[in-house]
């Protein structure tokens, strides 16, 4: 609020305009991203609701293949949760202007994300059912696939952030942390969705 005081001295028109522009250029991009993630979350909510309804009311949903192998998805859950923590560390390092450390944590995070995708791929190839085999199989692949798409985009984002966080030369610094913060918020969102997905799809 202190920045607004120059408006009072209304004789200086230029400073007035500057202040108004600053006010309007306030950075609301994270807010916008958060609103978008709410929307994105509603897409997942729709999928979850569809799956749970199918499961509750549809007699043709085969019971036999409910018994999914748990070790691989559990490993996946751990990978994503750890990657959320490492991304957080990358953000901390950036705020302390430690570009090298930040980059190292980012690379580690991207590696965990790619490991998740690889592990998901292994699961897909070892499952005894395909996309169109039955309703359960279709729902399984739609849910995990839509989430996997999010992880893929996230991993690409992290690699871009990693490249832009290099110093000297990168655009992401402690003065301009938005790209990193945006990717981080998105990544936490994707991880949170996975935890819900893991509980609904594998544990319930």
């Amino acid at each position: 609020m202190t920045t607004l005081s120059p408006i009072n001295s209304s004789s200086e028109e230029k400073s007035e305009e500057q202040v108004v522009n600053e006010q309007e250029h306030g950075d609301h991009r994270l807010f916008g991203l958060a609103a978008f993630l709410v929307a994105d979350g509603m897409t997942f909510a729709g999928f979850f609701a569809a799956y749970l309804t199918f499961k509750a009311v549809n007699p043709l949903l085969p019971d036999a293949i409910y018994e999914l192998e748990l070790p691989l998805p559990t490993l996946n859950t751990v990978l994503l949760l750890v990657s959320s923590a490492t991304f957080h560390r990358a953000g901390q390092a950036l705020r302390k202007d430690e570009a090298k450390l930040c980059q190292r944590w980012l690379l580690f995070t991207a590696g965990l994300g790619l490991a998740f995708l690889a592990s998901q791929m292994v699961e897909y190839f070892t499952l005894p059912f395909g996309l169109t085999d039955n309703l359960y199989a279709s729902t399984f692949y739609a849910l995990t696939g839509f989430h996997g798409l999010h992880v893929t985009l996230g991993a690409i984002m992290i690699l871009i952030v990693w490249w832009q966080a290099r110093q000297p030369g990168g655009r992401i610094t402690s003065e301009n942390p938005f790209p990193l913060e945006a990717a981080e918020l998105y990544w936490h969102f994707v991880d949170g969705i996975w935890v819900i997905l893991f509980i609904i799809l594998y544990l319930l």
Partner: protein
Amino acid sequence: MTTASQQTHQSSSGSLQPKGWLKYFSFSLDHKVIGLQYLVCGFIFYLIGGSLASAIRIELSSPMSDFMARDTYNQVLTLHGTIMIFLWIVPVVNGAFGNYLIPFYVGARDMAFPRLNAVAFWLIPPAGLMLITSYFITGAAESGWTAYPPLSITTPAAGQIIWILSVLLLGGSSIFGGINFIATILKLRRPGLKLMQLPMYCWAMLGTSILVVLSTPVLAGTLILLSFDIVAHTGFFNPTLGGNVIVYQHLFWFYSHPAVYIMVLPAFGLVSEILPVHCRKPLFGYSTMVYSIMAIVFLGLIVWAHHMFTSGTPPWMRLFFTIATSFIAVPTGIKFFNWVATLWGGRISLNSAVLFSCGFIANFVLGGITGVALAQVPFDIHVHDTYFVVAHFHYIVYGGSVFVIFSSIYHWYPKFTGRMLNEDLGRLHFLLTFLGFNLCFAPQHWLGLNGMPRRVAEYDPQFTFINQLSSIGALIMALSTLPFLWNVIQSAFKGAIAGDNPWEALTPEWLTTSPPPVENWTGMAPLVKEPYGYGIKEESIQIQSPDISDPENNKQ
């Protein structure tokens, strides 16, 4: 998405954009240009959708299917519904007037995310073109705007997939717009302007945008699953493969019932702006209006299954959704009585804007009453899927939203162009529209009660006369567009010069030049604390108050 581009967008939108007419055909970042782009683009689609409606009414003026083939009728019907909802009403009541007015109302120089705003608009023309050209290339979708499976997975796939793709694009556009409105209203308010001092349209747009952000993604997800069913032959909604069509209906109506409010809440807001200006009275019951909007937003999200009373819904579900739906009549009724109370005892100038607004109030009450009737299960089972439903929702979306769109065009045209519209042509337009609309849709209540099913090209010959009456109404509606078109085109060049504030209104968009400069105001944005302070003593109205160092004002 970079800071650098954020910092330069303001200046670039001023200097690097093409001037004059050309800017309306470019990727402009100016919220006023984008708003008019939405409006004109939407109106072109309205003319196309209206021609399709005329074709439907021509077909229905005789009991047999003689004007067009049955599957052509289905395509025309689908295109008419989709175009009118997704390409005319939703973009215009939200995108057009929202973009033009919201930055003024919050005292900003542009929307929160100008680039995203332009992207949201430019998704619409390609989506609309795709949808319409599908008719000529592959045949358009045939399953109605609801695209219920199994109908949508058994009709020709190409048209249906194109329909899904264009609705996904339009949904994306809608979501981007919604995010932008929420950020602009909550974050870009001028210092010193409190939420409860905002003009009512801001509240309407805030509520609408919340609905858009919460419900549109569910439709997108559902349509993605539906496209899997069509393309990859999965069985989500295909009973022969173990799927469940009712799940589609639930997910579809979780968006499409709020979509009714996405179309009509902004119209509520616009009427609340127009009436006080022309009645020279404050808006009656500002705070109850705000709470009503928020109540409608909340209730609008939990009533969707009233569209599915005949889909084998269990009794507890029928009970819940009947009660919840009936509740919506309360906040809606509050708003209706507030408008009437605003008119009551005012010095009303009966110009075209007010005529259309009053037409809206009259039509909307009728649509609201049939809506409450339809919420009751026994009645709904009787008239479900008949012309009674067609009459009901046209009273809401045409008698409601479209009347308000016309009213708003008459009200804000002087601000858009700097010139007045011709009042005589405007009154003629209103007369034809009001008569044509009621002649077209009022008889359809009777048709529905007597069992004429909707969406079918042929009907029992006993309904012929009433259908012909309805078709004459449609013809009058089609004709009513002509004086309007002539008026807006001719007045843009030869209309009387409007001046900055021809209505002597108090809301901020009138406190600048007509048309406004690129950044809305040459100096500071005015602080309007009483947007409806008509008839109140002059000195108590604060319009231009640079003194925002007052700590009381600075609290946000």
